[in-house]
């Protein structure tokens, strides 16, 4: 079970969130959008230089910057 940062998830790959960053209204915003511990995330696309990336989580497509996605830890479901 390898854990990587969300920003390192490659397009087309799935993962499960194992840890969310603590504190701050921003992580709460992320959670209300569906980024919670145990949620399944798929990386859809990344822009040039990997920043931002688009993820499919629960039933929404959301774009996140690298600096914000690196704090979220995911365990990869398929290599």
């Amino acid at each position, binding site marked *: 079970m390898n854990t990587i940062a969300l920003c390192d998830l490659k397009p087309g790959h799935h993962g499960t969130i194992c840890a969310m960053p603590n504190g701050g209204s921003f992580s709460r915003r992320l959670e209300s959008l569906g980024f919670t511990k145990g949620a399944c995330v798929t990386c859809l696309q990344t822009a*040039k230089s990997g920043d931002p990336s688009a993820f499919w989580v629960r039933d929404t497509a959301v774009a996140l910057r690298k600096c914000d996605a690196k704090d979220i830890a995911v365990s990869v479901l398929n290599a």
Partner: protein
Amino acid sequence: MKKEPSAPFTVALAGNPNVGKSTLFNALTGLHQHTGNWPGKTVACAKGICQIGAHTVELVDLPGTYSLSARSPEEEIARDCLLFTPLDCIVVVCDATAIARTIGLALQTLPFSSRVIVCVNCMDEARKKGISVDLSALSDLLGVPVVGVCAHKKRTFAPLLDTIEQMLAQEAVPAPKPVRLSPDLQSAVDTLVPYFDNTPHPFLFAQWALTDEPLPAAYTSYFTPEIKEEALRLRQALEKTGITDPAQAVTRCFVLHAEELFLSAVKVKAPGQPRRDRLFDRIFLNRKTGVPVMLILLGLILWITVAGANIPSGWLSQLFGVLGDWLRTLFLSWQAPAWLTGFLLDGVYGTLTWVIAVMLPPMAIFFPLFTLLEDFGYLPRAAFHLDHALCRAGACGKQALTMCMGLGCNAAGVVGCRIIDTKRERIIAILTNSLMPCNGRFPTLLTITAAFFSPAIPALQSAVGAAWLVCFLVLSVMMTLLLSKLLSVTLLKGEPSSFVLELPPYRRPQLKKILVRSLFDRTLKVLWRAVCVAAPAGAVIFLLANITVGEQTLLAHMTAFFDPIGWFFGLDGTILLAFLLGFPANEIVLPIILMGYLSSGTLVSVENVSALSALLSQNGWTLLTAMNMILLCLFHFPCSTTCLTIKKETGSIKLTLLAWVLPTIAGLSLCAILTWTVRLIAWMF
């Protein structure tokens, strides 16, 4: 609480951004709130009256909010309205294709209001995607009425209207089943509740006190040091039980409850992103094809605008020409004095009709096309591609969205900047918004390009004109990034804020509705502006051109004054004067220039491009002048409406002055650099 029969009931429409509140609002009230498929268009409360059954209802369209702990000004507006204004009913709108995400706000309203109706929108889209929502199961689980609608189809509104009517008549009072927090959290919140007993919402405030969230401005005084200490103590106690972040824990309770609701009441045939959206995103969001596709889409829209505008322009010019001749003969038969004929026909009528014939068609065509793209859901994808550059420039990714709005109208773009959470980034977006050429400047850019940079082959003219416009827009974006970076390192220092952008599902735009509504709307608006601004401007120029003081006309005096300054920037006095006089509306700049050159002639003689080009060349225009004109047109002070809007949004005269000065300096600097480089090169050879 019985209402008097005459007083209207107040019903609020709440929900996540981009679920269809405004569409519903428009359908019920007949008003025209701005709608489109990206989160963040409604930034203020809108109110409208509608009849629901026997009751007169004041409907309030709120800005979208993800949660009651508001993060941005427009979310605060929504929260304050929900919590502190007396509401007879709250309709929380959800998206059937994203129930788990959008039901969250409904869950948050249950604790403080029992008069909640959950309205699940986009039922038709959900059906197409193989998602079926069991409304009665949801209703049982939530304890409040749940109805389904398609906001685009009025015939689906009956259940919603019936339920609202029943609630207003207080025939059945729902028994909501609020989310149960985990026992530790609940007891902690209960401990704090007594402190807030004389506030309107003790439970909610107690929860916020525990999770250390800021209370609404009017109630911060309630948050005494005593309460703060107690909250701290409770948080420390919770840490011992393993809850290190109470705010996160509370959110998780709500999120898990939403997920339970979803699992119980929603059946999805194929989980994951719908196939059609995935295919679209593979083209639009792709790192390789994304940006080229963006430029091509833009080019396509502009090409349709340019090509499409030519025909109505021609007709209108002909029509006004004939009308003008008829009026002239009429005046002649009345033996009207020459100055009156000149004033009314050459001045007022000439300018007014020129603006309508030349400026109106491109504006009327661009707007509906842009609205189609908006409704389709493409704009957040454009923001996705621009985000990295905006981040490097110290700005917010959402600025891409406000820049797109500025393409339609800079004043609207400035108001749209409310979707940007941090004050610093909002101000950057406001100050740089007028660097994007608004609708009113397109015709000027198009006409100059057609006169000086157009190929001889008529078939290619529209395409080349559109290509030039795309280049100008790219230049505008680069200038916006440059100035944003400059502001970030000097006056508005700070770090870029965290950024999360929702990419909405693609929706089929309502073609007929948009084309008709937008076309009609736009045409009326532009016509009205033409009457209010262009006609008086024409009158003023005519007077200036015909009142002689000393040896020269007033106009000649004024242009002579500006000529040396103009020469320095590779322009002339007439052009500078026209820009200054064009402060009320950008579309009158070109007519003023032309009238300045004609002085006593009429604008009818420049109704086609070759006549225009000839006139300009006669007055000393070269390719360099045309280039400078374009640069100044792209980068100059915002129009009066935009300036007033900036003052209203920022509340600061200093910032409004800065917004006036910044683009002007940018434009004039570019002109100077270009002019002197060219002159230097010419001098060297």
